[in-house]
């Protein structure tokens, strides 16, 4: 008999938000491959059903939720089983340079990227949904740490705020033996990246060449890091930002 690996996620139940696409979808798939049971959430039920189809094993569930809506969040949390892991991943990106910022848009980005994940965790803690030994992972960004990119102030501010919260949450939840960490990817090939259309395909290729590893990341590569932080292999890691950046930080 083979001893189980600390990297495995057998017998763990994990909530993944923003699981309808990109990193969230890849994380759900990876967790299921490692033996975990996943509850996937997001706004787009059609895409969530597609994610569900991609999962290995049985027992996974879809609970659609608009995390901006407090009542829906309360309903979601009430419907959840006891959790061993939470992947707070839902997020959006919008672009504008400083002189052209729109306050409504900025508030929407802060709501979705910063406040909604914070208040989801708040509610999960209040209702004692996360078991002792649990792990919470936030999808942050290298933007939260040091990078400065033109037209990215909304996204960067939102992720920097979230990053501050991760440290405090890690400190405050340590007593409950709940670990809190973030993954901090650089540019990942997801639907979100292609959406702006601001840069031409040539500029896109040129940007990739700035990376020492000569390409953008793949959602699966962030999912692997998320799985590690959810697993017992990272049992003494809390309050950490795990950078996944193809070496761009070396530049």
């Amino acid at each position, binding site marked *: 008999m083979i001893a189980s690996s600390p990297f495995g996620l057998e017998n763990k139940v994990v909530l993944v938000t923003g699981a309808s696409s990109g990193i969230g979808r890849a994380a759900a798939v990876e967790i299921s491959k490692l033996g975990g049971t996943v509850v996937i959430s997001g706004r787009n039920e059609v895409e969530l059903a597609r994610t569900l189809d991609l999962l290995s094993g049985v027992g996974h569930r879809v609970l659609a939720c608009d995390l901006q809506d407090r009542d829906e969040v309360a309903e979601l949390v009430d419907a959840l089983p006891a959790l061993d892991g939470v992947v707070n991943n839902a997020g*959006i990106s*919008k*672009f*504008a*340079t400083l*002189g*052209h910022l*729109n306050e*409504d*848009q900025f508030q*929407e980005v802060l709501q979705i990227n910063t406040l909604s994940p914070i208040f989801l965790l708040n509610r999960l803690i209040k209702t004692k949904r996360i078991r002792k030994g649990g792990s919470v992972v936030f999808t942050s960004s290298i933007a939260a740490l040091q990078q400065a990119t*033109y*037209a990215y102030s909304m996204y960067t501010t939102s992720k920097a705020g979230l990053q501050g919260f991760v440290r405090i949450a890690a400190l405050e939840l340590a007593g409950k033996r709940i670990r809190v960490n973030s993954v901090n990817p650089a540019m990942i090939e997801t639907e979100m990246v292609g*959406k*702006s*259309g*601001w*840069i*031409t395909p040539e*500029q896109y290729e040129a940007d990739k060449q700035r990376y020492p590893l000569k390409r953008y990341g793949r959602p699966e590569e962030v999912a692997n890091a998320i799985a590690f932080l959810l697993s017992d292999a990272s049992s003494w890691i809390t309050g950490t930002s795990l950078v996944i950046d193809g070496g761009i930080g070396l530049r």
Partner: protein
Amino acid sequence: MNFFIKQHRTMDIQVFLQQIADQFDDTDPSLIASNTEFKKLDDYSSLTALNIISMIDDEYDVILKGEDLRNSITIEDLYNAVKAKL
């Protein structure tokens, strides 16, 4: 992705020229005309490009693509690219 409904504005080339001129930090506004090849101005940079795209998004609710900017030589080209998307 844009959940906010804005009033679509009608376009006026004089207003547009002023709006473009405002995106340049060190260029004399008198150098900004319909036939100005704006990417050849000394002051033009990748930030200017982003400022122009942001301004157009903000003022006209039009998301210009990188290609639209690349294919625009004069400010009038840019004006027509925006007008086509109103």
